[in-house]
């Protein structure tokens, strides 16, 4: 093992501590800025009537599909027709609509605006701090972790230092920045309250999930599965079950 490197205490005082403090402050600042920029919640959820209705239709059709055996055949047939009958059925999706739906989602200015605001509050400070760290503190070792690590951690801990001889347990200043960036989530949830944590990973998830739902597609899927189910009335069997239940009850 290579001999110990001696780290100047000035590095601790002028790099390690300030960097962490600045990261925390930026996180807090970002939280308040994003709170300011967030559009008031009363104006944002103004759902399109068609989407609401389609969602409800899907729920109702699904319950018809899953518990069709509980209603008489006549009632089932009437409902099936109501949902799937050609052009007039509730589950019918006009062809051009299906294609339009995807496009509409992207062209909705409100949604795009919201997303941009979120992104902006995330990316701008990150870029600035990264530039700042790069400019002032690039290329030297800032700290040492008290346990040895394998070579694979070199990329994570010694970003910005291209030396293969330095022991992996030394942390470069740029890596310290990254560790702070991703590691301060727990601290933020302590400072800003549980739900207010500026959780980048979750934001990303939400963005991805929000785009996935497509009512037109689920309408079509529901129609197809309704088309193929066979109606099998369970009630005649219920009579026999009821007989058994009563027999058991009488025996007691």
């Amino acid at each position, binding site marked *: 093992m290579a001999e110990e490197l001696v780290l100047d205490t000035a590095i601790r005082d002028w790099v390690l501590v300030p960097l962490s403090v600045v990261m925390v402050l930026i996180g807090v600042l970002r939280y308040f800025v994003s709170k300011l920029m967030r559009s008031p919640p009363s104006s944002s959820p103004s759902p399109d009537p068609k989407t609401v209705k389609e969602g409800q*239709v899907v729920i*109702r059709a699904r319950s018809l599909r899953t518990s069709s055996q*509980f209603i008489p055949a006549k009632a089932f047939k009437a409902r099936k027709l109501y949902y799937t009958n050609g052009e007039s059925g509730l589950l019918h999706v006009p062809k051009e609509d299906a294609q339009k739906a995807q496009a509409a989602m992207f062209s909705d200015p409100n949604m795009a605006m919201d997303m941009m605001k979120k992104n902006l509050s995330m990316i701008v400070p990150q870029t600035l701090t990264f530039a700042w760290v790069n400019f002032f503190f690039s290329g030297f070792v800032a700290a040492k972790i008290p346990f040895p690590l394998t070579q694979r951690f070199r990329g994570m801990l010694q970003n910005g230092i291209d030396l293969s001889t330095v022991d992996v347990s030394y942390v470069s200043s740029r890596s310290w920045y990254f560790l702070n960036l991703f590691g301060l989530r727990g601290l933020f949830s302590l400072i800003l309250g549980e739900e207010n944590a500026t959780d980048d990973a979750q934001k990303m998830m939400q963005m991805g999930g929000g785009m996935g739902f497509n009512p037109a597609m689920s309408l079509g899927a529901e129609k197809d599965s309704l088309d193929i189910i066979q109606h099998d009335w369970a009630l*005649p069997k219920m*009579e026999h079950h009821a007989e058994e239940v*009563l027999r058991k009850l009488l025996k007691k």
Partner: protein
Amino acid sequence: MAATTAISTATAAAEEARLLRLEEQAEHGGGGAWEYLSLARRLRARRPAPVLRLGLSLLNDASARSRLASEQWTLYEQVAVAAMDCQRVDVAKDCIGVLSKQFPGSTRVGRLEALLFEAKGDWAEAERAYALILENNPFDQIAHKRKIAIAKAQGDMSVAVDYLNKYLELFMADHDAWRELAEIYVSLQMYKQAAFCYEELILAQPTIPLYHLAYAEVLYTLGGLENLQTAKKYYASTIQLTGGKNTRALFGVCLCSAAISQLTKGRNKEEDSSELQSLAAEALLKDYKQRSPSKEALIAGMLKNMKLS
């Protein structure tokens, strides 16, 4: 699915017991008023008198109110609704006044104001207030439902049915609305429509025996051989779902089979083979013997008339 519903009903029962315990404790000056009010709000329990009393005493106590911080506004809302339930319109008015000063232009306060008009019986004004809310947000389910309630309170069932149908066109997966509509249809003696609503309810929640029972009753009332046979099946499924504990379903099976045999005059072989009605009659007799022995003779006579025992 049955297991999860069983668990949720068990926890709901436990919570309810806790609510009552807290109420007792708070009423006797044992503290815990705020816990009680929070729990009542969460369970949506409708206990206006204690809520009004405890909530008002919290609100009138300046230090307790400041301790609640921003929670006090929810308390104002809760107390306002409870006050309207108790016909204390003056209290409700004060609470709503405070809220509208704090949150000018809020829809939630607007709903409360409309509710106050309703409590006073000022239907036209209330309806106008709800219409305003709906103009801003056509998907305000509460406002829709209140409008239906206003029509119902005025005894104007056809308008209520109209509103309900319009509401269900938008929110067709709302089974509470379906149940309301079914009950209104039954009260208007529009049994075919009611049957449709009950079918919808059975589809949405097939494990709730009450819907099966109500559907069977509507079918029995409609009459006709086919409907009677179907009704009997649904009475049977109610028996199965309740484990034979539902007296109404037991009676239903007996009545249905009596009506069927009257219609077919004993020609129907398939019906005779089933033992269900005699079993149901037996279960009824046993039940009456246990719980109300004085009426047993009556039941026995009635069942004999139906040629079931």
